[in-house]
């Protein structure tokens, strides 16, 4: 608790402390921003990976056409021929933020490109997030803990992994929104001010706009409210903090198109409504208790309880019936897999197969929150001594988030702020104790004598009592503005008492010195680890690749080479088919229409592409032709040893294709259960389109056709393509683009052979292909 522990609150000292705090915060902001620039320095200022390219493209559209057009945007460049309604299916927070930033900068005559703004949005918001962490932790345990927590959050690796420059994804702004919402909730809880309650609802709205993770907030805050009620901590401040949030927050959330009526219809939100009812009942009870005599109150209680039980029973029965009538009990698969960790592995293979949905092992914690893992327990204990509304919220936050992170490695991101807050509290308390010990024993030996004479032994027990009482007092008083005078009096009384008490609560000098040294060492290790993680582990943009070998650094820029080839050498309306991983990039960088992309909402469509890739050339040509595809793009890593290429993803294409079109069978592509592309491979494998497009002319590179990813010589080396022609292959052969040959040539060849039969054969061919073609 800050107020009783600040020694001698003279105005000058206060002012100095405040200026210093602002300066430190500024430095923390700069640090948070600059540690995320490794990706720009080591590579260049590009958007990373896959999803950010989609966000970037949406932002481009937004800045070009304005908000209203963005809202109604039907995108015909993707999911051809279906298209996708963008405005109603994205969380718009990130794009609106970056678009607004760009607009402000332009109106200030700072002509930055949209891409630059997008690249640097995440680092900017991580600086904001560390400031929000300062505010939140300050509300919980005072300014010192706040500064420590902000510094820790500025460089926590788990957050860096999602917010390096260029990783332009929802989480970049969502973590800031999450912390801000929690701060405003705690602020409202501590002050009881409706102003902050309104701000809280706005912050919640921003969070809902930004990320699907908002359900964490709308379940955590009700849990905390319920906890407060159950442990007898109900107060009008709690009511003010909660009720406006539910009412305003739900109304605002329903405004976001992608959430809409889900805000009142799905089970994820039911907890908040249930607690909303409970808090009203409790508030009513407290109110009645206040206006009735104790005897009357007892009568009223028995009356109300009997009536209330009946009503509650009825409502509960209806609710249970409603919830039970839906197959998943109203919960989405992802939420269920959090409640029952074994759920996903049993029933939803798609969720279970994604790598970021795996449960983490202990090294993941050390990688992502590093030494904070050691400090968190101390923070938890510090929050209990003494327990306030704010610190109980912090404890609840860390406990739930650490449990969720244990289920899904992805949610480590939500844990990171909580771990920083807890470690900040722990470190600040520890430094407080150790530096106090050093200070009073080095400097205050003369004063010590005077005060200690007053009574060393008698005061100890008393002071403890005084201290805890003071804490609670000061907290209550802070809430009510009327008693400001009292507070002043108390703060004047506090210093003397607390000084005596603090001088007694010290540790031996030399061990304190060593302890401070060890803590600083721990912090230094944390900094080294975070910088290393930011520089080495989390900065690769995955669109430009580098490899270091004995003869220096190699840069593989094949993806952008291919995309720019597409944009310069193909017609604007040409359709490009590729596996869904490259959909977002193709639309954003080449501006060409794709068949499937990373928003995997239509399984049949993906299965069609998978089937085409797994079929022999002729059948594949038919499928692609029926989809108006002009070009087919494959990613091939065999020449340079790039492991996540299409051949390695091929079994997924077979599986997904076979899931919808049963004539594609996985065993046909496996020799004795093994996936191989060498001479032992099955004929189906060697004749499928993906094999041919990947290895066409591959033997010309080294004469043997040695694949550096699979470490074998390929099975079929010399073959010609009948229905496709190679139009472009990038420098390192990582992207290869083929064009579908036009059908006319083929028919002419036939007509030469047998003119009379020509018409009949073509028509029968057509009907034959119809049958085989799964698209029809």
């Amino acid at each position, binding site marked *: 608790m800050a107020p009783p522990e600040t020694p001698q609150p003279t105005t000058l000292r206060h002012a100095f402390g405040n200026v210093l705090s602002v300066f430190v915060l500024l430095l923390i902001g700069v640090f948070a921003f600059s540690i995320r620039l490794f990706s720009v320095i080591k590579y260049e200022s590009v958007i990373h990976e896959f999803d950010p390219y989609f966000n970037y493209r949406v932002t481009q559209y937004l800045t070009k056409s304005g908000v209203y057009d963005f809202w109604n945007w039907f995108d015909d460049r993707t999911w051809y021929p279906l298209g996708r309604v963008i405005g109603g299916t994205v969380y718009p927070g990130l794009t609106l933020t970056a678009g607004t930033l760009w607009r402000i900068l332009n109106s200030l005559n700072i002509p930055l490109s949209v891409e630059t703004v997008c690249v640097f949005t995440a680092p900017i918001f991580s600086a904001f997030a560390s400031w929000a962490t300062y505010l939140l932790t300050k509300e919980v345990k005072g300014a010192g803990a706040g500064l420590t927590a902000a510094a820790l959050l500025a460089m926590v690796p788990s957050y860096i992994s999602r917010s390096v420059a260029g990783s332009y994804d929802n989480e970049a702004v969502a973590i800031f929104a999450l912390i801000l919402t929690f701060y405003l909730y705690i602020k409202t809880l501590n002050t009881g001010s409706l102003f902050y309650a309104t701000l809280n609802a706005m912050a919640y709205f921003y969070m809902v706009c930004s990320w699907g993770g908002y359900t964490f907030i709308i379940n955590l805050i009700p849990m905390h409210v319920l906890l407060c009620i159950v442990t007898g901590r109900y107060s009008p401040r709690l009511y003010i903090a909660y009720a406006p949030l539910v009412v305003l927050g739900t109304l605002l959330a329903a405004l976001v198109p992608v959430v809409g009526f889900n805000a009142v219809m799905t089970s994820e939100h039911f907890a908040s409504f249930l607690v909303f009812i409970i808090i009203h009942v409790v508030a009513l009870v407290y109110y009645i208790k206040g206006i009735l005599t104790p005897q009357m109150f007892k009568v009223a209680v028995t009356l109300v309880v009997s009536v209330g039980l009946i009503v509650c029973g009825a409502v509960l029965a209806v609710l249970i019936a409603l919830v039970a009538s839906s197959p998943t009990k109203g919960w989405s698969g992802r939420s269920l897999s959090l409640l029952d960790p074994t759920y996903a592995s049993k029933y939803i293979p798609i969720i279970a197969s994604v790598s970021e949905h795996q449960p*983490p092992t202990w090294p993941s914690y050390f990688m992502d929150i590093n030494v904070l893992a*050691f400090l968190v327990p101390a923070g938890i204990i510090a929050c209990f001594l003494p327990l306030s509304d704010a610190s109980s919220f912090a404890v609840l936050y860390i406990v739930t988030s650490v449990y969720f992170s244990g289920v899904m490695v992805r949610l480590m991101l939500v844990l990171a702020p909580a771990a920083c807050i807890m470690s900040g509290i722990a470190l600040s308390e520890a430094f407080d104790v150790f530096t106090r010990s050093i200070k009073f024993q080095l400097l205050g030996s003369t004063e010590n004598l005077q005060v200690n004479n007053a009574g060393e032994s008698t005061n100890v027990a008393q002071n403890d009592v005084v201290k805890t009482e003071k804490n609670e007092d000061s907290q209550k008083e802070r809430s009510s503005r009327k008693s400001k005078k009292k507070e002043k009096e108390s703060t004047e009384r506090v210093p003397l008492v607390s000084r005596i008490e603090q001088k007694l609560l010290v540790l031996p000098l030399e061990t304190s010195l060593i302890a401070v040294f060890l803590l600083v060492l721990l912090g230094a290790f944390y900094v080294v680890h975070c910088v290393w993680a930011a520089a080495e582990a989390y900065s690769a943009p995955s669109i430009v690749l580098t490899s270091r070998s004995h003869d220096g650094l190699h840069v593989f820029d094949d993806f952008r080479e291919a995309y720019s080839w597409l944009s310069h050498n193909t017609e604007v309306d040409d359709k490009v088919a590729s596996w869904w991983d490259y959909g977002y990039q193709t639309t954003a960088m080449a501006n060409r229409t794709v068949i499937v992309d990373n928003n995997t909402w239509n399984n049949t469509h993906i299965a069609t592409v998978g089937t085409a890739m797994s079929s022999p050339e002729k059948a594949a040509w038919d499928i692609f032709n029926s989809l108006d595809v002009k070009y087919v793009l494959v990613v091939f890593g065999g020449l340079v040893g790039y492991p996540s290429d299409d051949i390695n993803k091929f079994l997924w294409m077979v599986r997904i294709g076979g899931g919808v079109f049963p004539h594609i069978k996985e065993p046909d592509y496996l020799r004795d259960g093994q996936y191989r592309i060498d001479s032992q491979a099955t004929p189906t494998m060697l004749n499928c389109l993906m094999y041919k497009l990947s290895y066409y002319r591959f033997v010309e590179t080294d004469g043997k056709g040695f694949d550096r990813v699979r470490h074998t010589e390929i099975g079929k080396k010399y073959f010609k393509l009948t229905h496709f022609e190679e139009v472009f292959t990038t420098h390192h052969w990582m992207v290869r683009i083929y064009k579908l040959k036009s059908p006319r040539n083929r028919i002419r060849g036939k007509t030469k052979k047998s003119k009379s039969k020509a018409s009949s054969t073509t028509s029968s061919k057509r009907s034959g292909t119809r049958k085989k073609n799964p698209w029809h």
Partner: protein
Amino acid sequence: MAISSTPTAAALLLITILFLLTTHGTPLSSDTIVSELSSLRSQSSTGVIHLTDSLLRRILSLPTPRPFHSLIFFDAHQLHSKPELSLPALKSEFSLVSSSFQSNNPNENPQLFFFDIEFQESQASFALFGVNSLPHIRLIPPTASDLKSDSIQMDASDLSRMAESMAEFIESRTKLSVGPINRPPIISKKQIMFIVAVVLIWTPFFVKKLISGNTIFNDKNIWMAGAIFVYFFSVSGAMFNIIRKMPMFMADRQDPSKLVFFYQGSGMQLGAEGFSIGFLYTIVGLLLAFVTHVLVRVKNRTVQRLVMIFVMFVSFWAVKKVVFLDNWKTGYGIHGYWPSSWQ
């Protein structure tokens, strides 16, 4: 698991077929067999009939098509102790399917009989089916004459999801519907009633206590311990162990007599490994909290000094150990970036 497959299986089969041929003449009506099986079935509590060599012979002696399917569970008591086969669990699932079938199809003239056969007493039958590994479940369709080729073995994938998948297998192969599996509830109805009654009676008292504020829920130490435990549980990767069903430790591949507690490679961990690291993660924080909140109140300087030295030693060791193990497990080399003039 190979259990001695007799090399003379073919010979036995021949003998059996000869036997069948000789007994073919005697009028063994199918009705008598069915009624005998029905009575056997009603004797057994789960509806699984214990099959012996002679009974099997009599069943097979019936002219094809026989009026019923037979599903046989091949059992060996000597292998019940092997945990990787999980024969007892499969057997109980098998009898669950059997009893469910019986209760869902209360037919006087059943079309499907469930059998179990014991290896030690019916080795000849095992040889007859050519069964040399367990677990093994086999369906004999009514038309089967040659046991090895005409009967259908249940795939490992059908065994994997216990009773439900066995029922699916039966439904797909015999066109007989097993119906929903009636698992016996973990606690019986009477117990449930009793528990509900107790909870109902206890709730008002509990709420009253809760309001007055003297339950364990109002003791913040309980909450504190709970929070710390959840933290320990999560950072130790226990969720990983539960979801992946990891063992606490495993035997070394090269040297089975040695036990491996730590697995190298960051994608996997063993149970004991996770808990020990989780303990190290937690202990440092707990000691730090102890020093900052409890030790400062101790008046004796020597005690303070000794305890602090102990705490710092343990914390330093724990952090060092975790850093070392992490580097070993993941293979990362974490290093700082110093100015190049320093090197």
